[in-house]
């Protein structure tokens, strides 16, 4: 494998001393034998030129292993000395040879490699110099292939494939000679002769060509005349000697391409087929061996073709007229209508890959041609596949820009048509397909979300919606009117199944009803958070709290769980209005009963109940505590397997029911109670505090990387959009938002003695438990900021892969190359040294990543 440098080969061991410059002194790292060769790197699967020194007395010890890079600046000094700076560490290194001859050999190898690397970057210079000699030649010439010479062809391609220059040379040759075309007849020939060895060789050659990551070659292999031949060769993978894939069969099968409306332009039709083949290549043929650069090249190609196709469609009025004409009364074929919906669905799915600014005109044109009425038609279709397609289209547009859809709805209202939201509500109530139901529920939420309408195209602002919507929304009047109308009329229809529970004794429901209740409760939770005052009075007047409390006695445990979640949401809001509704309505009683009922068991429902009361304890909601103790003291006295309820009683008794003030907090030191002395957390101040919350949130929203991170995560969510807003529903987020800023040093000390779980927020500097070894959890925000640059970061990869999917332009292409290179060096460093990595928090992320590799983290775990 390693290429021999001509006489004398440098791989003959040369005795040498290795030095490293430490504090301007040359430190002797030991004596050994030096080799220089191309060594196969397992991570990159390339052969990389390296210089190695093997220890003299312990041959298994490697004193030095360095990669020869262009920028290393290797220098030969005197006859026996080579010096350079290690690029990864910046350390100056030296090799002192015993013999000048040994030094000369190694030097020849090093300088050859470096010259070759320079030549890649400035090809012009490469030509007029004499460095591109012997085996490093930058051009190759392969014989016309025959079954007989395939082994040689494969071997020479392989040997060229180890250097960048060699790869360039192969690319040049393959394209100029149309070499793939020459290979293709051999596939059939070898198949006829059942010559498996040759087929394996052909497969290897094709794989090598494809993995060169060259756009023109990639375009070649999917070209009409070559595609089947290339796929044929790829069916015989030597890694699976007893298998034969059936790529040709799959790809040549008629009827895979469905043409709803004929596309006149032949070039566009060709592009459609090419995209399909590239995707097949990516998903099936290369799935197992695909590396990041090839993945990027494929995605970039697919992206460009798809943009062109969509561009063609949206600028082709005749085509659009035909397409939307299918939904007119003249068209009678239901099948054709169905296919048209599926076609639009695929257009929208493809449009998701476009850059947001390019998406807007696409959707606008579609809307202008009447997309909304197509959706309304499709939502009522009796074929579930069509309904799924309709919700997909709807959700993809909502994800892109909900305001765009809202404007269309306002137009519908102005024209006295049934607004889309009402159609959605009607459908939600009757829909049986759970997937469609889930998407509709999400769509209703987003369309009625007054806060998420700003900045139509700016995805970063949109993605901040999760946080933005909790801010006091800056509602535009039209939207406000819309929401108001919704509560006057539509909301009653939407939540009617809940309202109808009144006077119902039997809580047995069909699965359909159960799932409907679950979605309604979810939507209501969302409205409670978003529509501050409309939802309050709606819930009050319709007595929805009581109705949902009824569901707590349903025999279906997950329905109970969801009903409980609703109340958990209310409490989490820390809104005195809801707290009062709950205490006055005696709504804690069924929850407490549920806890007692599930108490002996350790199950999910019981934990959820405990968490509910633990929240009251943690947040120290004194009115609720007083209410609980005053009404349910006896019941609570018997619940001793957790300390929550004893704690309520003690707190109440200590204060005789009066507000618990800061002074009483000393009591808590004995108990397991996290206390947060909250001066002025009384009713009167509630609003003031709320405002502070909002201001704080805004601050974090605008300036914090953490939010940015979350935003990018969300963005990637939107990209694939299985559910439109999964992040919205974290009720636990609320706890982290209370300003901790007022806690002074004394409070912190008192916190120290108590348990940490509830009180020490990741963001706070409050120490955890008192065990001397336990250190406080580190500060989170700065952590995330630093993590931004870290490539190994898993959460970060969410956004990375988004970039991959959507916008693999040439730019992101190269950056992914760089990234990959970086991760190679990490791997290499990590792989060779297996010692435990002592990494302190303060180290830079780059070093940190390297350390992870060494720890066996390899691919970053999972």
């Amino acid at each position: 494998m390693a290429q021999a440098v001509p006489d004398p080969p440098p791989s003959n061991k040369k005795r040498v001393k290795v030095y490293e410059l430490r504090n301007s002194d040359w430190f002797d790292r030991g004596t050994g034998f030096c080799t220089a060769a191309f060594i196969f790197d397992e991570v990159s699967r390339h052969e990389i030129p390296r210089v190695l020194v093997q220890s003299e007395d312990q041959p298994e010890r490697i004193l030095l292993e360095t990669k020869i890079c262009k920028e290393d600046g290797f220098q030969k000094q005197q006859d026996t000395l080579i010096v350079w700076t290690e690029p990864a560490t910046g350390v100056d290194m030296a090799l002192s040879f015993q013999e000048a001859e040994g030094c000369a050999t190694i030097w020849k190898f090093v300088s050859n490699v470096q010259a070759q690397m320079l030549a890649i970057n400035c090809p012009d210079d490469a030509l007029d110099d004499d460095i591109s000699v012997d085996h490093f030649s930058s051009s190759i010439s392969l014989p016309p292939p025959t079954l007989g010479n395939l082994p040689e062809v494969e071997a020479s391609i392989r040997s060229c494939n180890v250097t960048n220059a060699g790869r360039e040379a192969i690319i040049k040759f393959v394209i100029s000679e149309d070499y793939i075309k020459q290979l293709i007849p051999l596939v059939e020939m070898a198949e006829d002769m059942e010559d498996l060895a040759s087929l394996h060789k052909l497969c290897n050659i094709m794989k090598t060509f494809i993995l060169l990551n060259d756009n023109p070659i990639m375009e070649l292999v999917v070209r009409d005349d070559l595609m089947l031949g290339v796929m044929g060769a790829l069916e015989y993978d030597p890694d699976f000697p007893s298998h034969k894939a059936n790529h040709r069969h799959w790809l040549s099968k008629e009827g895979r391409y469905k043409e709803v409306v004929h596309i006149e332009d032949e070039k566009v039709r060709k592009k459609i087929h090419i995209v399909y083949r590239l995707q097949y290549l990516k998903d099936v043929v290369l799935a197992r061996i695909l590396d990041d650069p090839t993945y990027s090249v494929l995605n970039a190609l697919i992206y460009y073709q798809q943009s062109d196709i969509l561009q063609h469609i949206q600028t082709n009025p005749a085509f659009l007229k035909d397409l939307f004409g299918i939904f007119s009364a003249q068209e009678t074929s239901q099948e054709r209508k169905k296919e048209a919906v599926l076609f639009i669905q695929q257009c929208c799915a493809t449009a998701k890959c476009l850059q947001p600014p390019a998406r807007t005109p696409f959707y606008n044109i579609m809307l202008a041609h009447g997309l909304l009425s197509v959706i309304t038609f499709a939502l009522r279709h009796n074929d579930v596949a069509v309904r799924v397609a309709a919700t997909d289209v709807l959700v993809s547009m909502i994800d892109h820009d909900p305001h765009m859809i809202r404007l269309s709805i306002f137009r519908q209202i102005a024209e006295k048509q049934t607004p889309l939201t009402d159609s959605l509500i009607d459908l939600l109530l009757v829909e049986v397909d759970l997937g469609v139901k889930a998407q509709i529920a999400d769509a209703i939420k987003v369309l009625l979300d007054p806060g998420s309408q700003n900045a139509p195209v700016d995805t970063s602002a949109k993605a901040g919606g999760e946080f933005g919507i909790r801010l006091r929304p800056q509602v535009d009047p039209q939207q406000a009117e819309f929401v108001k109308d919704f509560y006057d009329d539509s909301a009653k229809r939407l939540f009617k199944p809940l309202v109808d529970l009144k006077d119902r004794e039997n809580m047995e429901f069909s699965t359909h009803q159960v799932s409907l209740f679950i979605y309604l409760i979810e939507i209501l939770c969302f409205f409670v958070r978003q529509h501050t005052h409309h939802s309050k009075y709606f819930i009050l007047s319709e007595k929805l709290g009581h109705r949902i409390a009824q569901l707590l006695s349903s025999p279906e445990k997950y329905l109970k769980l969801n009903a409980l979640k609703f109340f958990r949401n209310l409490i989490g809001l820390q809104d005195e209005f809801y707290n009062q509704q709950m205490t006055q309505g005696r709504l804690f009683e069924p929850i407490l009963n549920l806890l007692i009922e599930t108490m002996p068991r350790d199950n999910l429902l019981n934990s959820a109940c405990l968490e509910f009361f633990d929240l009251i304890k943690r947040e120290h909601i004194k009115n609720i505590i007083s209410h609980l103790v005053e009404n349910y003291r006896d019941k609570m006295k018997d619940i001793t397997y957790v300390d929550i309820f004893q704690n309520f009683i003690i707190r109440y008794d200590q204060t005789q029911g009066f507000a618990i003030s800061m002074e009483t907090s000393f009591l808590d030191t004995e108990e397991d109670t996290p206390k947060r002395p909250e001066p002025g957390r009384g009713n009167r101040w509630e609003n003031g505090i709320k405002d502070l919350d909002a201001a704080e949130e805004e601050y974090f929203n605008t300036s914090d990387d953490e939010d940015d991170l979350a935003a990018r995560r969300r963005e990637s969510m939107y990209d694939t959009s299985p559910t439109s807003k999964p992040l919205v529903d974290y009720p636990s987020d609320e706890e982290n938002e209370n300003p901790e800023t007022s806690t002074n040093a004394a409070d912190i000390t008192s916190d120290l003695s108590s348990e940490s779980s509830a009180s020490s927020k990741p963001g706070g500097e409050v120490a955890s438990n008192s065990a001397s070894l336990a250190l406080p959890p580190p500060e989170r925000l700065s952590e995330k900021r630093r993590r931004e640059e870290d490539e190994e970061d898993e959460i970060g990869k969410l956004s990375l892969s988004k970039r991959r999917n959507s916008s693999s332009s040439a730019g992101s292409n190269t950056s992914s190359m760089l990234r990959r290179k970086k991760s190679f060096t990490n791997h290499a460093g990590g792989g060779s040294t297996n010692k435990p990595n002592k990494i302190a928090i303060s180290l830079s992320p780059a070093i940190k990543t390297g350390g992870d590799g060494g720890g066996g983290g390899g691919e970053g775990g999972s």
Partner: protein
Amino acid sequence: MSDLDRAIAQLRACRPIPEAQVRELCHKARELLIEEGNVVTVKAPVTICGDIHGQFHDLMELFRVGGDVPDTNYLFMGDFVDRGFYSLESFLLLLCLKVRYPDRMTLIRGNHESRQITTVYGFYDECLRKYGSANVWRYCCEVFDYLALGAIVLGASTALEPSKQNVPASAASTQDDVDSDIEIEVLSHDGSIIQKFPRGKARGLIGQNNSAAKRSSSPAAKTGPPGTGASGWSRGSTGSSSGAVLCVHGGLSPLIDGVDKIRLLDRKQEVPHEGAMCDLLWSDPDEIDGWGLSPRGAGFLFGADIVKVFNHANDLSMIARAHQLVMEGFKEMFDNSIVTVWSAPNYCYRCGNVAAILELGEDGMGESAHARSNGDVNRSDGGIMKENERVLLAGPARRYRVFQAAPQDSRGMPAKKPVADYFL
């Protein structure tokens, strides 16, 4: 139940079951899982497995090496899906087995059992390809929300029971090594011994120089495979109970100082971005003091001191977790107080690692010795360690079975399912 058995058979052949059947399966699984605590109690003997990541054929290999369900009691520590091309078949098979043999199968949640992560790392895409809609993905995600967050293994023996695995008859004669007090035994996929560590000598050995595990094809010559006849070993006399073993996918959380604290979480939700539930699924042990920042963007790094204090305060002898690729399949750290188990060989079809499963034997003392319920609160002292009581509990005897990826020919070429029809 015959429907279920049919589904199991079909999934074992790596063929997806129809959507309606998935819905029913998920419904049944939910009924079961809702009755489980956040930390499930499991009694030894049990075989603990790490990440699977949709490598269906390797999961089959795992069952071949570890014994089939219900003969073997399994505990899977999450990350069933993503990355590999058969997440759907792998997860549904495990779920079917859970529903069919609820007491022989424990599944806990990994960080990949999440809507967000699965949309990026493959499971969502796979469901879409295989069913044409995301419904099955939704059903599965719903089940994810119900999965327990951890498990606690009670009654693990401190002495190794002889391997149950059938040993080649020729090797069965060498029985010189079953009597010594072996703490750790590493076996290759065919049941032959690669390494053995007597009690007391094991500390610090495992994990560091585990390279022998890679040479699983040529086991060390001097240690023969254990005999099946178990001379000199009598059940119950040497086997005594060790401390409990906590199993979680990721690791510890600064917000959780006792196992009981986990009970106070409402786990039925998408994995949050921070907080105790997130940390349990995302954290990693690391050679640091105290807590550190995780490069993953969620969870924390935690050092040996944290693990030791936690184990002591909770009467644990060990923590078993998954979440990180280890080339040797398993890696013990911090004086054997925590072990990473990784069960996806040749991860992503290209990492070249071996995989492992961890077998904990049953002590001979019956269930009384360490029986405790999850509701037993205040069992821990809240992490405050009294200096004079600082005794490390005897670790359970551990048998690691190391195995490699299923032979390539047995599985066909791994690939995603191509899109059938296209308009664009």
